[in-house]
């Protein structure tokens, strides 16, 4: 930036000098002084060009980046913006993270060359090797492992660091080579995506778009912070701020934490104990029934299992309806009164009654939840329960309503590079990959959610990890993951493609230097209330020995004799064009390829204004049945009853056929004398999961902190800014204390995604403040998903 800085300085000197004159009274030439000729400017030099690119990280805003480039160096990062855009003009404006890309792309810690591990796994000691040596090693190891253990032993780990239409090329390569063990699901919404489609059909996983709530009278937001999870200028950050301003609805935030979404409107915060949403819902449901505020006609027409009238044959006459659960005539035989729920939830009984009256009368009612309530050991039941509120009062499929799930998005269908067919039929829940490394042959459909086959025939012997940090940092129980991955007799070979030496990369045998998507041709679609797509070109030439994944895999495919199959003779750019043309054939309104390459960013407003989930089903349930077994919304699920009977479940593994409140696992959810506090994660504005976790200027103003209520901090002698140690049976972390009334007493909160920083061959104390040093590896009962918000701990001054 030397010449830029210089020119700006001379500019400042010129304007400042005359400005000083002006202040002293000699103002004659002041106008000219500021904007006069001959003043050098940083961003108006003729050789500067701008290049469109996009964020590719799992936000998933994937906002527009406009690179100002001179001399093959990025000078600054602009975005899709204009001086006068208000709420009438959505623009995918990059958030604080996108605006700091220069600090990441030019970081001295960036991976620039292929590396081979020379220390133990997890130590982070590597040596530089050539691309030829790296690819030859990978090719020979892949051949050896496939020959010795079969294709089922090759695992492509769950990874979300990069998305684009040509980003997922590893499955394609492996399918050319006979297949691989796939993981299903994710670490984002595993409990919900396993449960909701079973009971609401495939269209029910996402709710209405946020702008549908403009027409609502009451908005209930359970465990969601739309402004923090997707921070861009045309996704939920913008959509939520606009909604807040436009709607006349009362908003109630139900959350253990006064999130940034509720800042400025704290009166709307309803503090609750984490993981107890189902109990609050049950008590509201109890009051709705008691006061005859339910929409019985809706429940009879559109749902099964609210009461005996619509119970399926297999469960009739057994007091197994949801109403039986609420009123205490079935299941645990406890009436779910507000007095029952108050000590569980921390919400006063009177407040619950008031809430029930509001829910009972509000039309339209818009219920939305984030993915916090489901990322728990009781997550399946907890997230499902929240979806009961709109059902009980018939507030589904109508203007101003949703279905209690996370907000939906309006998006453009952009085709991605085809993966081909995977000859290996077995797949595992992504969260169980360390179990499959340890001893995959113990894993079955009934004890570990193996799909596509009754059991695994082989353990994982090789992991290929492209742009992901789930080997350790984002996985549960990092100390255990370390022990499993550090044992080279188990997983024999690990390859990681990365831009930075993440904690997961430290476990690689070979690390390959990746290009950002904005350093290669790339295209992506995203959206919130508004849809958009971005076509990007490389902002600079590749620096050092960094290469695109596509080119790297094409070289690897050549070594393995499948180059033609893998590339079909096409470059990445040619794939992007072909995939785009295929998308355009289905959506002729899309601009031509030449045009989109030229304009970079294309936006489309939802032609229907907003999307209302279950609109067609509500209008005509006979003509538009759901994909559930009954074709209706299932409040009692026979499928879940069958799963609960058939599966091998552990203690506290609750899979009920109706959405009951269950406290979760004893070891992660019930505070003890040793670990009296609950500990929950949340999404942090300074990172997306662990991405950007190494960027200095972001860390500087977004410190990794433990939110602790003054009533919990005081007896522990903890003051704001102190270094505290958080400890439980899984591990120890250290971070700074944020003493704040924005979190409920008895619960501490820690933003997830901080970079694990521990000497794994020493004391293992994580001084990076990564919550997964404290989380369990035990999966939730049904989805076998990550219960990473279910934690208990003790906190001390370090």
């Amino acid at each position, binding site marked *: 930036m030397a010449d830029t800085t210089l020119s700006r300085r001379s500019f400042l000197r010129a304007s*400042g000098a005359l400005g000083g004159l002006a202040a002293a009274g000699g103002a004659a030439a002041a106008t000219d002084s500021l904007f006069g000729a001959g003043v050098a400017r940083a961003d*108006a030099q003729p050789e500067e060009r701008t290049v469109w690119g996009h964020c590719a990280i799992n936000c998933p805003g994937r906002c527009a980046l406009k690179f100002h480039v001179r001399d093959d160096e990025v000078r600054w990062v602009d975005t899709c913006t204009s001086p006068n855009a208000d709420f009438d003009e959505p623009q995918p404006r990059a958030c604080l993270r996108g605006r700091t890309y220069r600090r990441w792309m030019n970081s001295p810690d960036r991976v620039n060359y292929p590396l081979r591990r020379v220390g133990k796994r997890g130590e982070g000691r590597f040596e530089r090797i050539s691309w030829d040596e790296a690819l030859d090693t990978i090719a020979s190891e892949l051949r050896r492992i496939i020959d010795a253990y079969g294709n089922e032993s090759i695992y492509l780990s769950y990874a979300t660091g990069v998305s684009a239409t040509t980003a997922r090329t590893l499955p394609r390569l492996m399918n050319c080579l006979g297949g691989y063990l796939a993981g299903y699901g994710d670490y984002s919404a595993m409990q919900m995506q396993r449960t909701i489609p079973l009971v609401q059909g495939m269209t029910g996983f996402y709710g209405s778009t946020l702008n549908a709530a403009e027409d609502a009278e009451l908005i209930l937001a359970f465990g969601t912070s739309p402004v923090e999870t997707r921070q861009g200028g045309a996704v939920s*950050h913008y959509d939520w*701020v606009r909604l807040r301003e436009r709607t006349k609805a009362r908003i109630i935030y139900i959350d253990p934490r*006064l999130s940034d979404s509720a800042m*400025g409107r704290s009166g709307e915060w309803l503090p609750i104990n984490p993981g107890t949403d189902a109990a609050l819902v049950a008590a509201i449901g109890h009051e709705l029934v008691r006061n005859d505020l339910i929409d019985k006609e809706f429940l009879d027409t559109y749902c099964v299992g609210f009461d005996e009238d619509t119970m399926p044959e297999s469960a009739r006459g057994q007091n197994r309806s949801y109403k039986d659960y609420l009123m205490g005539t079935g299941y645990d035989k406890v009436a779910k009164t507000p007095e029952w729920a108050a000590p569980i939830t921390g919400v*006063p009984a009177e407040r619950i009654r008031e809430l029930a009256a509001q829910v009972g009368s509000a039309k339209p009612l818009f219920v939305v939840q984030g993915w916090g309530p489901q990322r728990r050991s009781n997550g399946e039941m907890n997230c499902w329960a929240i979806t009961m509120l709109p059902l009980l009062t018939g507030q589904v499929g109508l203007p101003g309503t949703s279905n209690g799930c996370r907000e939906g998005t309006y998006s453009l269908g952009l085709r991605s590079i085809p993966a081909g067919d995977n000859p290996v039929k077995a797949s595992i829940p992504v969260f169980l990959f360390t179990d499959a490394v340890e001893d995959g042959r113990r894993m079955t459909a009934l004890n570990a959610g193996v799909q596509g086959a009754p059991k695994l025939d082989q353990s994982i012997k090789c992991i290929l990890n492209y742009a992901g940090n789930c080997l350790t940092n984002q996985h549960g129980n990092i100390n255990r993951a370390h022990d499993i991955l550090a044992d080279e007799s188990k997983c024999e070979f690990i390859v990681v493609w990365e831009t930075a030496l993440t904690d997961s990369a430290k476990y690689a045998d070979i690390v390959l230097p990746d290009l950002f998507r904005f350093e290669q041709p790339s295209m992506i679609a995203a959206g919130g209330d508004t849809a958009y797509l971005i076509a990007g070109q490389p902002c600079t030439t590749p620096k050092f020995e960094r290469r695109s994944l596509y080119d790297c895999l094409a070289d690897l495919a050549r070594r393995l004799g499948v180059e033609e199959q893998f590339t079909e003779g096409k470059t990445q750019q040619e794939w992007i064009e072909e995939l785009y043309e295929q998308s355009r054939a289905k959506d002729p309104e899309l601009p031509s390829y030449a045009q989109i390459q030229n304009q970079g960013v294309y936006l489309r407003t939802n032609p229907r204004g907003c999307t209302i989930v279950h609109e067609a089903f509500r209008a005509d349930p006979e003509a538009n049945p759901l994909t559930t077994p009954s074709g209706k919304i299932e409040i009692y699920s026979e499928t879940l009853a069958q799963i609960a009977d058939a599966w091998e479940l552990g203690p506290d593994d609750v899979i009920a056929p109706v959405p009951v409140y269950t406290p979760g696992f004893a070891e992660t959810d019930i505070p003890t004398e040793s670990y009296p506090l609950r500990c929950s994660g949340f999404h942090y504005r300074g990172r997306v999961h662990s991405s950007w976790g190494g960027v200095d*200027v972001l860390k500087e103003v977004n410190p990794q902190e433990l939110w602790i209520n003054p009533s919990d901090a005081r007896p522990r002698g903890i003051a704001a800014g102190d270094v505290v140690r958080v400890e439980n049976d899984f591990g120890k972390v250290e971070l*700074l204390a944020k003493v704040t*009334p924005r979190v409920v007493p008895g619960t501490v909160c820690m933003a997830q995604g901080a970079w694990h920083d521990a000497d794994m061959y020493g004391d293992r104390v994580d001084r990076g403040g990564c919550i997964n040093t404290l989380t369990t590896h035990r999966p939730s009962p049904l989805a076998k998903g990550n219960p990473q918000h279910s934690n208990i701990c003790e906190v001390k001054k370090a």
Partner: protein
Amino acid sequence: MTHYAFHFDGSRCTGCKTCALACKDYHDLGLGAAFRKVYEVTLGDTTRQADGTFASTCASYPVSVACNHCADPACVRVCPTRAMGKDEATGLVAVDEGRCVGCGYCAMACPYGAPKVDRERGCSVKCDGCAERVERDLKPVCVEACPARALDFGSVEAMRKRGDHASIAPLPPPAHTRPSLFVKPSADARPAGDPAAAVVNPLEVI
């Protein structure tokens, strides 16, 4: 002649800091330097009552602020070398690095903490309102960056129509320097000078 001002919509701001980091990128500021900052004000309490349920009086709101290019800038008043000046035409306050000796009076005098002394450069540095962008009919980088559309920039007259003179905590009362900053406060916002409305995120403010 147009004197410019910022507008801050406290009902929209979510405290995300995109403004601050876009500014740092554009002005090429490294660690320890920032021309815009975002305060978190939090007050009240959230307690567990005898029956185990929660009660909260908590209020919390963000405030984003840079140099306010004041009508009566304290930094200009105290500058012994006349390096700090308010441009007659635009009202933007800037430092003449050639004249500045880095004494730091401006940093001490400004009630908003806008100027800072850059020890390496030996002079004061601060937000210049992105004067060169304004000349080209663009707005300051922070304004055009805001995903929540909480910042704006325009003539003092236009911005005044959209908000009160900056008089929310933790900012000082506007009478001190007559800042070119107009604010639409959030529901939680407290008046300037309210001693309970403390900045609770000192670690996040450069």
